[in-house]
Each structure stands twice: as structure tokens, then as C-alpha cells.
């Protein structure tokens, strides 16, 4: 058993657990975006940054950093709140997050985080990129304007469904989540139509077609429910 301290509270972790997992188990909430229980950590969004006091105040992503004996961690402070808000502002400025016109309005993780962090306005100029919406799939759609490149869909599809349909194409802010060789989703030969990616998506980027905004509630916890029922592979 490992013992560490988060926000002055002594907590325990089992070997292999991340700082985030140990904190959550102890009832301490750390905001996350790219993390989804049941998927491998990616450390893509940095919303979960925490400060490690005994590592010279270094900032590490709680979701992707193993809990270690004796760590003294700050998970909530004005500095972290400001950093998290800045990250959120950058995400909003990067694509077209026009909540009023989004299918996920009211149940979007990005929107909730922004509200929690008191993000009243964005200090960066909006880029307003012209991004496509792919409605070629009979059941689902993907609107790149709302994508935060968290990779939850990519991981859900490869790690849970095993279809490996989604991948990232391009790089930097021009990265797009695309199916197979960049094909329209509806033409994908690998997609089974299971919808796991849609449930895993934190925003309105992946959505169910023909559903009203009020019904567009994601069930991200499905992913962990599936993976937890799987037999453990003895390593």
C-alpha cells in the first residue's frame, strides 16, 4: 500500500494506481476531460494538472501519473484553477463551440467544466475554422467543430470494441478524427456501428442522429462497465 497526501489529506493507493484514481477513491474530485474510466490514460488535455510539492511544484497530469509513496499533492488552488481555465479557453478558441447550437447543450463535459471554472469569456481570438460535419453514417454523426481531440472515441473503438475505426490524421490544431483511410464514416469497412465512440465522446462532436438535444445524454460509464466485466489477463 502506498500513502500520499492530496490537498493536505492523507490517502492510500495500491501500486499501479494513478494519482487520479487514488484521489477519486478517497472522495477527492479532480476535473478531467480526456480521461474516461475503462480506457488507458492519454494525458491529452491537461485539465487534470496537479502540483507535486515535493517535486519542486512540478505540474503533472493526475490521470496519467502513477501514485508514489510520499507524494505531497495540491489538486485545488487558485493557480491550478487559472491554468485549467486557460486550457478551457484555448479549447473554446480552437474550434467552433457554439453551445446554443450544439446537440449536447446542457450535457456536455466541456461546457460543464467551463461553468465550474468560471469561464465567462475567452481571452483568445476565436479561430473559427471551417470544419466539416460527416453525416454519412445512418445512426451517428461527427461534427469536427465540437471536437477537442481528447481521443476518447479512438480509444473506445480500439480498446473496447476492437474495431480500430478511428484514428487521428494530420497534426497540431489541424488534427482530425477520421475513420479508416479518411473515408466517410458511413463507408467504413471496420465500423460495427456499436456506438461506443459516441457514448465516450465528452462533447457534441459525436452524436446520435435523429435525437433531440434533450435526449443526447452520453453514457460514458458504459465503457468501464464493459471493461470491468472482462476477465483480467494475467500479466
Amino acid at each position, binding site marked *: 500500500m502506498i500513502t500520499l497526501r492530496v490537498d493536505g489529506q492523507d490517502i492510500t493507493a495500491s501500486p499501479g494506481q494513478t494519482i487520479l484514481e487514488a484521489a477519486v477513491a478517497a472522495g477527492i474530485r479532480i476535473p478531467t476531460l480526456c480521461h474516461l474510466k475503462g480506457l488507458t490514460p492519454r494525458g491529452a488535455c491537461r485539465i487534470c494538472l496537479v502540483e507535486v510539492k515535493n517535486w519542486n511544484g512540478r505540474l503533472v497530469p493526475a490521470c496519467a501519473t502513477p501514485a508514489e509513496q510520499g507524494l505531497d499533492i495540491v489538486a485545488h488552488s487558485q493557480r491550478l484553477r487559472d491554468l485549467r481555465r486557460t486550457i478551457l479557453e484555448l479549447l473554446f478558441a480552437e474550434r467552433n463551440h457554439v453551445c446554443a447550437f450544439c446537440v449536447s447543450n446542457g450535457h456536455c463535459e466541456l461546457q460543464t467544466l467551463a461553468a465550474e471554472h468560471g469561464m465567462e469569456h475567452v481571452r483568445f481570438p476565436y479561430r473559427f475554422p471551417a470544419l466539416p460535419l460527416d453525416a454519412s453514417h445512418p445512426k451517428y454523426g461527427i461534427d469536427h467543430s465540437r471536437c477537442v481531440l481528447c481521443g476518447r472515441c479512438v480509444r473506445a473503438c480500439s480498446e473496447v470494441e476492437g474495431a480500430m475505426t478511428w484514428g487521428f*490524421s*494530420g*497534426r497540431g490544431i489541424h488534427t482530425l478524427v*477520421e475513420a479508416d483511410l479518411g473515408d466517410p464514416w458511413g463507408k467504413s469497412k*471496420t465500423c460495427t456501428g456499436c456506438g461506443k465512440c459516441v457514448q465516450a465522446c465528452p462533447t457534441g462532436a459525436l452524436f446520435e442522429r435523429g435525437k433531440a438535444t434533450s435526449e443526447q445524454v452520453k453514457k460514458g460509464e458504459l465503457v468501464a462497465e464493459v471493461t470491468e466485466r472482462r476477465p483480467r489477463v494475467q500479466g
Partner: protein
Amino acid sequence: MVNQKEHLQRVLEPYTHRPAELIQALHKVQSALGYVPRWAQVQVAEVLGVPPAQVRGVITFYHLFRQQPVGKHTVRVCMGTACHVRGAQRVLQAVEEETKAPAGKTSPDGAFTVEVVRCLGACGLAPVMMVDDEVSGRLDPRKARKVIQEVGRGT
């Protein structure tokens, strides 16, 4: 095409079921064909046993992989600092118009591929471009157009 596919099959043979060697395999494809067309991407995915999405991820991440054939002539317009401050942007625009190939692309007639590079090491001659192996310097849009026209006539 059938021949090309068979040829590629031989090129890819050593990479059968070797997903970790995706990048090397793509290099081989590119040196065999000059670019990595879609049909070759499908073949790479099948032979190596990697998801198509991963093949696409690698090809679009590394700028050195091409998905379009290269033109007969390659024009490299320098956009390094020295060339930039001496009007390389206007030179590039002229080159794009004259060749009908937007930067990074090949003209519809297959005559030119236009690339943007960062410093050709000839800053004293800025703005500079290279057409195949020939360097031309102290360019302005008019001069650049002339160079392209001359090369174009030679083909």
C-alpha cells in the same frame, strides 16, 4: 495497375505481419512508386496487419509522405527568414499561379510540384527558389514566372 500491385506485394513481402515496421514499409512504398496512393495504403494495412486508420495517421503526420504523385519538375520556394522579409510570399503566389499548383501540391497537368522550404542556405540571394537542381535568386514575382515558363517550355 495489376502489375504495380504485384510489384508492391514483393516490396512489402518482408513486412508481412510486422505492424511495428509501418514507417519503414511506407518509405519503401514511396521509393517504389514516388508517392503512397490510396490503393497502396490499403495494401500496406493488409500486409502488415495494421488498422487503416493507423496507416493514415502516420502518412498525414509526417510531411515527407506524399499521397499525390510528384510532378515532372519540383519547385522549392524558400520561405526562410531572409527570403520571407524580401518578399517570398509574393514569389510563392506567382509560382502557384504560374504552375497552377498550390503549395504542397502538384499541378493538374502533372508538370510541377510546388513545395515550401525553410532556408535553402542561399540567403544572400534572397528570395530564392530551386527548380529541380537549379537555384534562382534575387527573385520578384515577374522573374519567378519567367523561370517557370522557361522550364515549362523545355518539357
